[in-house]
């Protein structure tokens, strides 16, 4: 009898604490971390939203999709930007820590663009050729119709969602050891811009000062450049969704912000920044 009373007392105290915490107001400061590919659009969203909602503080940082997902799991960020879907192992970690599978929000589309130096005469590559180049089987530009020069590979670090997506959908194997890993899409673009025989990959929004390589699904297919139309109709072979992940269903200011991103104003900014809208 006494034992039963003890158990009920403990349970009662804990229940009170749980309810008190659960209904505490959500903070007005929202942290956003993750994909470097999405940093441009995430910063733009934040700038514009804070102008019309000065009571909300939005803090945006990059670091890569993997870094953002880790931050979401350990509670260091409210929103994770990711340029790839969450892995099962990451979802398991989120389940273990928060009892939630996370909320996935598709907020934009992107065509992974293959960057070439503007002086490079190569105009198009097939997915198979890209795989050969990035696995190190094709080492010279002349093997794909270019000059007799060694191909210089530039890519992202393995915490990047673009790195993972490109590996799973294009490279389909291990990256060549000669591939220089750089800490952001901007760095990849800059490297290719300054290397006559360089090749890189990354988000379409970063394609400035370089040549976009047209990509074909296979040797017999037509090559396409990433554009709103080719990504929407699926003819450009390396397109993907960009995601926002939350631990739980959004409420309060977080929900307002997400709704705004998915609304006309947020999606308009997507197009302005060189990405593609989800609808």
């Amino acid at each position, binding site marked *: 009898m006494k034992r039963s009373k003890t158990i009920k007392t403990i*349970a009662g105290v804990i229940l009170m604490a749980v309810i008190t915490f659960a209904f505490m107001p959500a903070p007005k400061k929202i942290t956003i971390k993750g994909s470097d590919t999405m940093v441009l659009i995430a910063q733009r969203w934040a700038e514009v939203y804070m102008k019309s909602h000065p009571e909300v503080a939005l803090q945006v940082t990059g670091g890569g999709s993997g870094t953002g997902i880790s931050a979401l799991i350990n509670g260091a960020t409210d929103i994770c930007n990711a340029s790839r879907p969450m892995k*099962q192992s990451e979802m398991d970690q989120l389940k273990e820590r928060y009892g939630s*599978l996370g*909320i996935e929000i598709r907020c934009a589309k992107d065509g992974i663009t293959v960057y070439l130096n503007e002086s490079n005469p190569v105009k198009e590559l097939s997915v198979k050729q890209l795989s050969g180049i990035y696995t190190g089987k094709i080492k010279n530009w002349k093997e794909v119709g270019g000059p007799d020069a060694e191909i210089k590979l530039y890519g992202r670090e393995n915490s990047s969602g673009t790195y993972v997506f490109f590996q799973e959908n294009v490279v389909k194997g291990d990256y060549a050891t000669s591939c220089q890993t750089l800490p952001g899409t901007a760095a990849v673009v800059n490297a290719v811009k*300054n*290397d006559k025989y360089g090749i890189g990959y990354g988000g379409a929004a970063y394609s400035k000062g370089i040549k976009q390589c047209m990509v074909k699904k296979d040797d017999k297919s037509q090559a396409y450049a990433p554009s709103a139309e080719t990504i929407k109709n699926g003819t450009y072979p390396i397109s993907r969704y960009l995601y926002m992940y939350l631990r739980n269903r959004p409420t309060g200011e977080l929900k307002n912000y997400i709704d705004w991103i998915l609304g006309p104003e947020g999606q308009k900014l997507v197009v302005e920044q060189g990405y593609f809208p989800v609808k």
Partner: protein
Amino acid sequence: MKRECTKEPISQEDNSVRHSGLINTNYFRMKTKKVTLFALTLGLLVPMMLAKPVLAQTTPTDTLPQQVNTLRDRINGFEDRLATAEGDLSKLTKIKLSGYIQAQYFNYEQSSNYPYNNFMIRRARIKVTYEATNGVAFVLEPDFQPGNFSIKNAYAQINEPWLKTFSLWAGKFDRPDYEVEYSSSNLECLERSKVITTLYPDEKAIGFKLEVMPPKTHLKVQLALLNGNEGYTYTDGNKNPYDPNGVSPVNTINAAQNNVDFDGFKDLMLRATYAFKLGSFGGLNIGAHGYYGKVKANAYDLLNSDYTYNKAISNPGTSIRRNWAGVEAQLYMDVLGGLTLKGEYIFGINGAPGYYTTQANPPTVTTNSMSHDTLFQVQKTTTTISKVPAIERNFMGYYVYLIKNVGKRNQFAVRYDYYNPNTKINNDSIGYKRYSKSVSGTPTNKWTYSSGTNMVVATNAQTVTNTTNALSTINSTNDLALGTWTFAWTYFFSNNIKIQLAYSIPINETVPAATGVTYNTNGVVTGNKTGVIKGYTVNGVSGFYDYNNVIKQNFLTLRIQAKF
């Protein structure tokens, strides 16, 4: 990857572009996150900048293009060196290091537990993972508890690269079960449930495991072939070849500590799980596992779970059964910041080996030339050879967790776990249902060995009585069921540190009151016995537990965990 040096003159504009782009961005920026490489770069650059240039020296008379070329040669030289260094360092990136330390304060409310409270290191583990190539990993995880070093994980994992579906594990790893595989660093209620720690002591086992996880599905199937004895402690009756008393004393084998197989029998485990997504509500994982195992009977008699005689065993090396099955479910609900309900139910037959003793082989009688040899004359004696039969107990156990996240930093968990080691014995039969058999032995020789004065051997006739002792005695709690409530609160202080407070309330199964019990001065039961009584002596004070009541054995744990 040697960079070619062009001999063409370069304009001022080209130079500035190349310098600002290639060096500042493409060269240095990529290193900003690699502290080690950055340090190495500094180590290379600074001495070279400070040192008197010799080979690549530019002179005031050089034209600008010549100076640029000279500088570019130097940079290319650095790049080559860096490429070599990066190649070396990239090998280090294949090694991943993680680990955690759990330090805790323990307070027992049980009178027989002494000391009543203590500080302890519960776990101190470092996990080293080496990913040799994509899909191949080696894992080594020692545990450094003070005075008790052990290897927790040591395995190689090979993921097949074609279908990306199968992976093969070899070595020592977690047995396939939900709570076993749930990391000790993530346990909401600090320790695993009674049914799990009983069936899968030490959690790990040595063997092979095949995992099947078809991509883009949520199915996972695990098939493991294991020694199966890891974590158990056995009493093997036939180990000591020397015995001055005529019979071999039993020998304890700690299969967990020694990582040895107690017998030649291998155990098979199969587990399958499937994860369902329930839209924005959350998710549901369901699964089942089966265990088909054997263990050496190590006895000449086998009993049923209700202590009735099953059969005589002619060879103690014969196997007895360890077969069970379990179902599990985990429901994740996105309710007020996350709510989890999870549980597992396991039932089956768990065979417990017995033990037996045999007469020792006589020491070799040597013709001893030493002058002080003495022949002892041993009187006729009677020796009892102790034996315990093997038994196959029917058991069942389960646990249920309710876990609620409270904000980002707090978590509350409550668990009820229950384990009934013998479902064939009701509480009013515990302590009464026993098995005992006495067999008169034949007179045999007794051998005496004196190690102090070299070898001295004497023989005489003695009478040996073989006794198969009772398994369930007045002070045996082997068949008592135990249910435990655990309330735990976790505060996530930072990404690496969490503080946990847990209070556990074990509630034992009660049995009819003991009667006719007497004790000697050491608290040992000596009188006529019924019921279940367990005596103890702490600091010279004797007492006893009468399992007619719920024994107060609550405990509180305050734990700090640092993880990296």
